[in-house]
């Protein structure tokens, strides 16, 4: 019985990889049958060759690095602002009343739509991308912070009060660990959104980054390059997701 369960478990772990591997011959088949030219639908071999070329001439790593820095800086700034403001909002009903109309209204503006404006104001460099990332990350992390901090059990506040804990002790030893599950949930959403933010910014105007590669490939009918850039983005997003999952495994052992 347990043996069977175990084999099933390992099988399901390999299933994802298997389905990806199966997708490649299917893709080749589509290329073969449709007979589409390379600049419309490159074959997996074309993409692989393009990948190796971009890797060896160093351009791929460079542009991936630029985008990663934008994503991480944007995430950092967005998460910092969102958790600080979210914490204050969670603690003060009057501050919430004052700020929430602006926050809700700001959510009606899609960041994608104001990205060109931000690029005009802040230039085509890294700054505009970081700002776009942090704006897109801000709201979901803010909401999670408010929800997480509000959910801290009032009887644990009583406990800390009876022990004469200081504000800082309450923050570090109660509020932070108690709301961590929800905070990490916010980070998980934020990490994925940050990738989108960086690409949106780069597509508007950039001289470097994966979004730039994407557009360059597009202009030069180098469709294989577009595929490579898209795959790199997927890998970036998955890695960030994986980091958050690791954090959850490390810090939320007590939950399950």
């Amino acid at each position: 019985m347990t043996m069977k369960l175990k084999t099933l478990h390992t099988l399901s772990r390999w299933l994802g990889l298997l389905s990806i591997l199966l997708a490649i011959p299917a893709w080749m088949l589509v290329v073969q049958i449709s007979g589409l030219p390379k600049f419309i639908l490159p074959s997996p071999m074309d993409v692989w060759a393009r990948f190796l070329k971009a890797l060896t001439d160093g351009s791929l790593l460079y542009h991936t690095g630029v985008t990663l820095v934008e994503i991480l800086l944007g995430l950092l700034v967005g998460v910092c602002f969102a958790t600080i403001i979210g914490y204050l909002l969670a603690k003060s009903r009057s501050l919430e009343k004052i700020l929430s109309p602006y926050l809700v209204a700001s959510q009606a503006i899609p960041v994608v739509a104001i990205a060109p404006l931000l690029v005009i104001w802040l230039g085509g460099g890294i700054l505009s991308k970081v700002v776009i990332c942090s704006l897109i990350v801000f709201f979901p992390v803010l909401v999670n912070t408010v929800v997480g901090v509000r959910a801290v059990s009032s009887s644990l506040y009583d406990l800390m009060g009876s022990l004469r804990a200081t504000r800082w002790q309450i923050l570090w030893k109660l509020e932070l660990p108690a709301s961590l599950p929800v905070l990490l949930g916010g980070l998980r959403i934020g990490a994925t959104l940050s990738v989108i933010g960086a690409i949106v910014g780069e597509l508007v105007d950039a001289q470097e980054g994966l979004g730039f590669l994407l557009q360059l490939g597009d202009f030069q009918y180098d469709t294989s390059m577009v595929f490579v850039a898209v795959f790199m983005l997927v890998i970036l997003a998955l890695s960030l997701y994986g980091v958050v999952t690791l954090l959850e495994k490390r810090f939320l052992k007590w939950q399950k």
Partner: protein
Amino acid sequence: MNPKPILSVRDLTVTYPDNNGGLDALDNISFEMHPREFVCFLGPSGSGKTTFLRVLAGILPPTSGRVSFMYQHRQNIGMVFQQANLMPWRTVMENIMLPLELRGAGKIKMENMAREMISLVGLKGFEGSLPRDLSGGMAQRVAIARALIHDPDLLLLDEPFASLDALTRERMWMELSRIWQAKQKTVIMVTHSINESLFLADRVLVLTKRPGKIKLDLKVDLPRPRTDDMRYTSHFGKLAKKLRAAIE
């Protein structure tokens, strides 16, 4: 006995805000306590016993009236809540160490004291367990250990033994009496059990239905140490009867 009270409560009234004018939980409570005294509060559910403890602990400000402490006793309180109230992300050991941690004690000292408390409440072998893996009674014993570890002068206990089995409960009574006598503590304990209050207390106060007023202030003049056999004496019976009559 020291004539100067360690704690004095004057005309304490607590009203919780609600939609229609507020909900009175406590009404004009006045009471004094001497150092080393053990006082039990009895009263029907909702009579404001927990509310009273929260005011004494300084967690809840009184709506009116005054609570004053001699010395700095208010700085050093151990409280056991009606529910165990453990931090789910901390192990048994870490939960028990919390009061010392907040006072900035060293790690070695904290661990040694925590181990001592763990064996006192009979939880050896569960040092590294998480609260989710404990039974209700075990969790409550962790809470008791946590309330005692920093050697507080004033202990506030909100039905601390309600979720324990009879055997453990009686062992905890003995332990509590012993600690109370050895360490010169002042204890206020809320309970629903007349037996428990007569076994432990110097004085039992009975509260009325909400809003709580003091209905009876009964001195328990049974000799100490108290034993199981006392339960069958006529004096114990007389005291129990008085209490029962006062509780609606």
